[in-house]
């Protein structure tokens, strides 16, 4: 009787897994073998390996890499300094708060800031550089993406820094290591899990930011996500869209295994 009751919990949950996790992935895979007329074919995959799509995939990865790298560069010192402040919890809350505001509203704010007469150009004017076209460039796309992802990079790094035993740092310093050596040999390796989690939380979504490429980059940047959206909702070529989605899923799996915990390997 006991096991019967226990299995009851599993029924709705397993149903959810089958309907919304397993079935969608299979449907994506299934659709990737059909062309726009509904014929079973491998043409979509052939099309993906033409220079047009390969270039798009490459540039998509390049942008995602840039966004992740810049987020990490800004987030690590921020997280490190946050652990040293007095009212940690309050500062952390202030870091989290912007993530509660809809991504689109933040993107929309940058339409104003980066606009021809916006804040950014006003600052450039006063410094003496003169106004520039900022909106609808690669720079604005990367900047806004980094802006949006920074909190997601700070949080895991902050958590891993908090878990770091401070006596290890003291020991390193006592044994004569310089501040830089201590950081490089002790602090950074021990917080690597946080860095990995942060990179994972930034890189994968950065591959698929179609709304930012539309709003901020003015279609100058085409990511894999933009292409999926384009094929599904504009040209209605679901087969090709599904094929690109299959490659996105593969990329995701690769990144997950790269940034996953490899404790056994050390």
């Amino acid at each position, binding site marked *: 009787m006991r096991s019967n009751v226990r299995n009851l919990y599993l029924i709705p949950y397993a149903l959810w897994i089958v309907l919304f996790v397993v079935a969608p992935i299979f449907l994506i895979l299934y659709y990737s073998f059909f062309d726009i007329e509904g014929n079973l074919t491998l043409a979509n995959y052939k099309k993906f390996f033409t220079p047009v799509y390969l270039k798009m995939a490459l540039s998509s990865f390049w942008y995602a890499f840039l966004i992740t790298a810049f987020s990490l560069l800004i987030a690590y010192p921020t997280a490190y300094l946050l652990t040293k402040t007095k009212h940690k919890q309050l500062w952390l809350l202030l870091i989290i708060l*912007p993530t509660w505001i809809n991504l689109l509203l933040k993107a*929309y*704010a940058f*339409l*104003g800031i980066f606009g021809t007469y916006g804040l950014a150009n006003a600052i450039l004017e006063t410094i003496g550089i003169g106004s520039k076209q900022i909106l609808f460039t690669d720079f604005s796309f990367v900047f806004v993406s980094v802006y949006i992802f920074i909190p997601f990079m700070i949080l895991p790094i902050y958590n891993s820094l908090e878990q770091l035993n401070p006596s290890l740092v003291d020991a390193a310093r006592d044994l004569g290591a310089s501040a830089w050596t201590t950081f490089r040999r002790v602090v950074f390796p021990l917080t690597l899990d946080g860095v990995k989690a942060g990179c994972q939380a930034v890189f994968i979504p950065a591959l698929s930011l179609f709304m930012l490429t539309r709003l901020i980059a003015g279609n100058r940047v085409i990511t894999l*996500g933009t292409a999926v959206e384009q094929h599904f909702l504009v040209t209605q070529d679901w087969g090709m869209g599904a094929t690109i989605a299959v490659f996105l899923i593969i990329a995701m799996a690769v990144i997950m295994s790269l940034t996953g915990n490899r404790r056994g390997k050390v």
Partner: protein
Amino acid sequence: MKRKIKWPHLYLIIVFIILYTPIFYLLFYSFNSGGTMHDFEGFTLEWYKEVFQDTRLLIIVLNTLIIALLSALISTILGVMGALAIYYVKKRQVKNALLTFNNVLIVSPDVIIGASFLILFTMAGIKLGFTSVLLSHIAFSVPIVVLMVLPKLQEMSPTLIDAARDLGASQWDVLTKVILPFITPGIFAGFFMALTYSLDDFAVTFFVTGNGFSTLSVEIYSRARQGISLSVNALSTLIFLFTILLVIGYYFVSQRNNRLNGMGGRK
């Protein structure tokens, strides 16, 4: 020491300024009578009036809230069941497999979820609109509830359940009188996370929303694509205030739970 601003502080201050500039920029220009997001001409509440007179927009706000509350409620129930299911599974491999499946939707990019759900709903013959949006919001909120509830379950000492059963409690009593009270903080956290996931989502909704139905983020997207209109600013100010209220509410709920459940809260 207090008089001098040291460079680490300066760095943090700059990061915070950059984080908050766009938000306050939006709020500030929602009061601009000039109608643009530059050159502040004069103070006006015109744009707020416009928001409150726009019945279509108000209906969309209502839709968004209904979807968020319903999906958070249903996904919390499903998620708690999921966490209990994972908790009760004894075989390690099954447990790990379930957890892996659970995390798929959390790490998947939104476009993949959106596109695959679009195919799913089309094949299942579900009309795109309220139902499809609600179903997809429930679907992507379930795993986060599981992740919030499961640690609480694992924190709970199994002897509690054994003691309750020894004292003659039925399965149902054990669930409602022992397990659920213990994991309440996790359930609340999961509910709030599901709520924010739903309110925040754009990409998945954009795929499955169809023509007649719209949520707030989809509406903001289509308005922002047409350029700047300060009623969006006014709207975002209102959303910002609402968000802060939610954060404060969440803070107090979690505080109270910690106090009531002394053994539950770790901090």
